[in-house]
């Protein structure tokens, strides 16, 4: 507690230490001259002193300097830098448009920010991914995937072959706060986890925070994936699209009112179902027999849209939305059996940016987020439906205050109303319907206020100190409205916590720095899974009397060094994270035990810890760019009621994780790329014993995650060809990829079979056959070439 009070005193001290000097502020927005898009992370700095700042998520910047003359430079990847000579003797508003730089496109610079920001910033364990760069990397089945690209960074792992789930520094997939234009996305994958729900064509910026989480973020233990959608071209109409093996996509954008308002609509749909339809005709064309599986299929689609309106020089409005669905259906007319499983996310954000003055910027948002899953089964005249979901209404206000060049102060508040629908079921038999009197729902209120100050104590020392005060109130099955209306004394679960956040940078010289970070995070909602992989059936449950909030404390230390005038960026980070109140289903839990009721009694709770070292070597400039990332880590869990109380490795525990990514600009038309990944095998649980009941064989599993499978490794290569059609309005590119070049048979899953029973021998079974249990490793995705055609006009 003393430490927390000390931090508050430091805030106050730092905040008043710069008073009394004659300061003036330069502020404004920076946008792309061609599209009118606000640019995030543009570096704005004085060329002589290198004092500076960067544009925020809305393209706004504010730089307060002592009265004097300055050469202020605005620089951003792929765009021509602009330098303004300014005689600063009053507050000044400068909006800048940066133009495309044809020289820079010859030699690639992959960073969209000040080139030594990794040295000078107080933040650590944060990475910005450039969408244009990941579009040049080799992809699987032609699908550019934001989450799979993030997995190539040190400290972030996948769950295995094909998975787009993120596991950050020993945290599970529910410990990542995934935001799309500030709206929480609860299930970020399509096709049972193979692809992410984010359409790269509609994305402007991706920021990943895996440690040292700033105070404005909370509600999750491990990481933040903050994705900002494009605003839409406010200069001219534009269409982008692509045709791939798996899906096609189309993006339309343009001005509603030139330079004042614009829109963007982006859609994507797979066509597995369309391609397979001829083979699943009602009548098989080859045999003339009825096709028992007619009506089976799978598809996903997503639609992203955004509209913005510049109300005045000080006010801007943004309305954005996402809607995506996966639909899996299976039918077998032989026994009248049919399944339909739809699931997906819907989000909506309405945001208002307001500039009070040159130093104070505000964003206010109203956000809606919804995730739902359904399982429908019909057989004969029986129908059964199970459904679950989570629905959020969220409002937040964030302030950015930059009183002088040494301080960047952020403060704000956030309130979310959660509505959980745990596993509910309804059924029908003939004319009789089985349905609970009302759908079982649970309601919770989550709130937070925060304050942080990114403060330069001296030229060498920079501190980002923050406090987040979070609260969670769970009303069980009583909605907030009824709670207020009927009885404020109704029993509910209340949790309130202070979460200190601290990052510190010590600059050793102009090219190197030491950094440290300490964070405490609470997480009030939890994802419960009965599966060994992340599936849409996984259930979000709130903290309650039985389910305590998760807690994590993370310590991180790092050394950062840039070489050859920032051409090479290197870092070495070490972290230790301890987690408490982690949640698992009890051993032997059956989902139907808690149908139409709370799941609270189904869980068991435990702790975990993770520690590791991450190395990153990155080349930012030149014809060849890319990075090498390596992580050495260990993640362990401790549950009294799991694995007989003995510690066990997390299933995503990886001792070694190496990724090498490279892009080479061969000519004006050709860009080559390659990826190599090596990771220790996952830890899995295997059967150890079997026994017979009623003539059938049953299995006993022991030692949770006690078997480590073979290491995972693969190499992908790709090439992007851009035909040189000078000054033609219609542009196109071809992307060629080969996934898993040497066709490594990486494990997808292991299954077991009792071999030796001859199906041709009548009544042969385990009693009279000579049965040999065998284990088989199944691999998907051998060498997979793909081609995608992208266009723009």
């Amino acid at each position: 507690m003393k430490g927390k009070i000390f931090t508050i005193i430091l805030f106050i001290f730092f905040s008043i230490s710069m008073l009394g000097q004659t300061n003036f502020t330069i502020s404004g927005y920076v946008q792309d001259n061609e599209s009118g898009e606000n640019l995030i992370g543009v570096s704005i700095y004085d060329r002589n002193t290198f004092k500076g700042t960067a544009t925020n998520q809305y393209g706004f910047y504010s730089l307060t300097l002592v009265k004097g003359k300055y050469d202020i430079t605005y620089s951003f990847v792929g765009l021509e830098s602009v330098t303004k000579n300014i005689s600063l003797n009053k507050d000044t508003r400068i909006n800048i448009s940066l133009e495309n730089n044809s020289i820079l496109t010859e030699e690639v610079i992959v960073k969209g920010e000040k080139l030594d920001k990794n040295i000078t910033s107080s933040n650590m364990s944060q990475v910005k991914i450039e969408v244009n760069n990941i579009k040049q990397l080799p992809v699987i089945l032609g699908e550019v995937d934001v989450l799979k690209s993030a997995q190539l960074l040190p400290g972030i792992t996948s769950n295995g072959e094909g998975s787009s789930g993120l596991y950050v520094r020993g945290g599970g997939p529910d410990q990542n706060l995934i935001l799309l234009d500030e709206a929480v996305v609860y299930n970020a994958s399509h096709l049972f986890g193979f692809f992410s729900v984010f359409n790269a064509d509609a994305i402007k910026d991706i920021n990943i925070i895996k440690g040292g989480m700033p105070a404005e973020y909370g509600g999750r233990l491990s990481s933040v994936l903050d994705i900002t959608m494009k605003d839409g071209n406010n200069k001219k109409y534009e269409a982008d699209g692509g045709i791939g093996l798996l899906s096609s996509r189309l993006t339309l954008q343009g001005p509603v009112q030139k330079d004042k308002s614009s829109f963007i609509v982006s859609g994507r749909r797979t066509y597995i179902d369309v391609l397979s339809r001829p083979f699943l005709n009602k009548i098989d064309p080859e045999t003339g027999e009825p096709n028992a599986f007619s009506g089976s299929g799978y598809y996903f689609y997503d639609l992203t849209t955004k509209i913005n309106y510049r109300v005045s020089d000080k006010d801007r409005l943004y309305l954005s939305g996402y809607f995506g669905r996966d639909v899996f259906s299976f039918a077998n007319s032989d026994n009248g059996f049919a399944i339909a499983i739809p699931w997906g996310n819907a989000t909506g954000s309405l945001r208002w940016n307001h500039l009070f003055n040159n130093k104070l910027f505000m964003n206010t948002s109203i956000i809606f987020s919804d995730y739902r899953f359904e399982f429908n089964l019909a057989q004969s005249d029986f129908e059964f439906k199970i459904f679950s979901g989570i629905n959020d209404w969220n409002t937040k206000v964030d302030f950015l205050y930059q009183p002088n060049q040494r301080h960047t102060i952020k403060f704000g508040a956030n309130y979310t109303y959660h509505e959980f629908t745990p596993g509910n079921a309804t059924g029908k038999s003939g004319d009789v319907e089985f349905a609970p009197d009302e759908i079982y729902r649970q309601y919770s209120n989550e709130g937070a206020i925060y304050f942080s100050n990114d403060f330069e104590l001296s030229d060498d020392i920079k501190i980002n100190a923050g406090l987040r005060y979070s609260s969670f109130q769970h009303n069980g099955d009583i909605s907030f409205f009824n709670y207020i209306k009927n009885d404020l004394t109704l029993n509910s679960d209340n949790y309130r916590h202070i979460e200190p956040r601290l990052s510190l940078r010590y600059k050793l010289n102009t090219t190197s720095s030491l950094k440290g970070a300490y964070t405490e995070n609470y997480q009030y909602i939890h994802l419960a899974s009965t599966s060994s992989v992340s599936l849409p059936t996984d259930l979000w449950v709130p903290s309650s009397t039985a389910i305590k909030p998760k807690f994590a404390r993370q310590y991180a230390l790092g050394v950062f060094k840039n070489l050859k005038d920032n051409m090479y960026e290197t870092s070495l980070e070490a972290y230790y994270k301890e987690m408490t109140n982690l949640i698992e289903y009890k051993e032997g839990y059956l989902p139907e035990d808690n149908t139409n009721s709370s799941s609270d009694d189904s869980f068991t709770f435990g702790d975990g810890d993770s520690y590791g070292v991450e190395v990153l070597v990155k080349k930012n400039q030149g014809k060849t760019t890319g990075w090498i990332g390596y992580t050495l880590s260990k993640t362990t869990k401790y549950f009294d009621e799991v694995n007989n109380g003995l510690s066990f490795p997390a299933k995503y525990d990886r001792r070694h994780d190496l990724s090498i990514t490279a892009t080479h600009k061969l000519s004006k038309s050709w860009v080559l790329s390659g990826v190599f990944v090596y990771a220790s095998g996952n830890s899995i649980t295997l059967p150890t014993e079997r026994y017979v009941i009623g003539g059938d064989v049953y299995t006993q599993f022991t030692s949770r995650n006690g078997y480590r499978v073979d290491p995972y490794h693969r190499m992908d290569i790709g090439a992007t060809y851009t035909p040189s059609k000078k000054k033609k309005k219609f542009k196109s590119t071809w992307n060629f990829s080969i996934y898993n070049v040497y066709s490594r048979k990486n494990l997808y899953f292991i299954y077991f079979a009792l071999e030796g029973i001859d199906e041709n021998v009548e009544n042969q079974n385990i009693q009279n056959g000579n049965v040999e249990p065998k284990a088989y490793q199944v691999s998907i995705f051998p060498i997979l070439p793909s081609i995608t055609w992208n266009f723009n006009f």
Partner: protein
Amino acid sequence: MKKYLFIFLCCISCEKEIFIEFPIESQKIVVEGGIETDMPPYVILSKNQGYFDEINSSTYNNLFINDAEVIVWTLDENGIADSVYLQLLPPPFDSIPIYTDINYLTSLTNPPYANLNGYNFSKSGKTYNLIVRWNNQEITSQTTIPNPTPLDCLWVEKNEFSDLDYKFDIRAIYNDPADEQNNILIKYRKKIHWDVDTVNWILKDHKDEFMELMDAGTDVLIDGQRFETYFPHKGDGNIPTLPYNSSRYKKYQDNITGFEDSIYVPNDVVIIKFCQIDEPAVKFWRSIVRQFGSNGNPFQEPLNIVSNIEGGYGGWTGFGAVYYKIPIIDGYTTDSPLPLDSIEIIDVF
């Protein structure tokens, strides 16, 4: 050809055999036992074995334990312990070793059917304790026999999805007791199931030797409702979805003489055992159903069988059972459970 190309694209995955060694942690006793109103208790005992151990007729038979001490006890109305020592069934019921009260079996007046007066030891509403001693191990368990809840009626009706006119369903109306958290277990046995040997064109009775598990579950969704349901049997996939056979003539042609004729195939006769069971027992039976359904599913978090046996594996269940005998004849209807003296003892086990 297109079809095969599509199948190829869908099946790009490949597999290889891997070798894993896991020694067995400890030798444990596996119990499959039950007790129901008016019937003697029974227990089948076996041992666990290593997952990758080979199974053949010899190793399978060696799994069963036939030298254990098995005791079932309860408290009578006066709170005094009353117990029964179970012994192995003699031939011809010794294809697997079943422990039961053989004194009751020798008292049967019309074997293999139960006695009309029942078995005094086993009554619904009472709790029964099991003790098994074997190889310096003692395992225990406890179960309660709930009150049975009969079905309102059962009838035989044409299966609407089958093109074959002799495929019929057993349908029933069940009236679930309201406000009672009861749990249901359903078993069945094709007591008669004639099929044609198409090589020699003779009839063979492919009846089930023992009762088969159809399903088990709680009444959370159906509590207090009266509704129609149906009772299918297992097919190749071992998931109960299939209808039964009524009588029919099956045409055939002799391959040598070319002589055309038909053979009369009698209808199936099915025994339905409809039971109420207690909470620990339904957890055991649900996990049996679930592991059976998910066996081999690599995405399923491993699910051990939920046992109510202290120190061992398996389950000890009190059944509040009613039995029905259903001949698969179009329009056959009954609302009468079988009387005690029409229940075959083998259907109890």
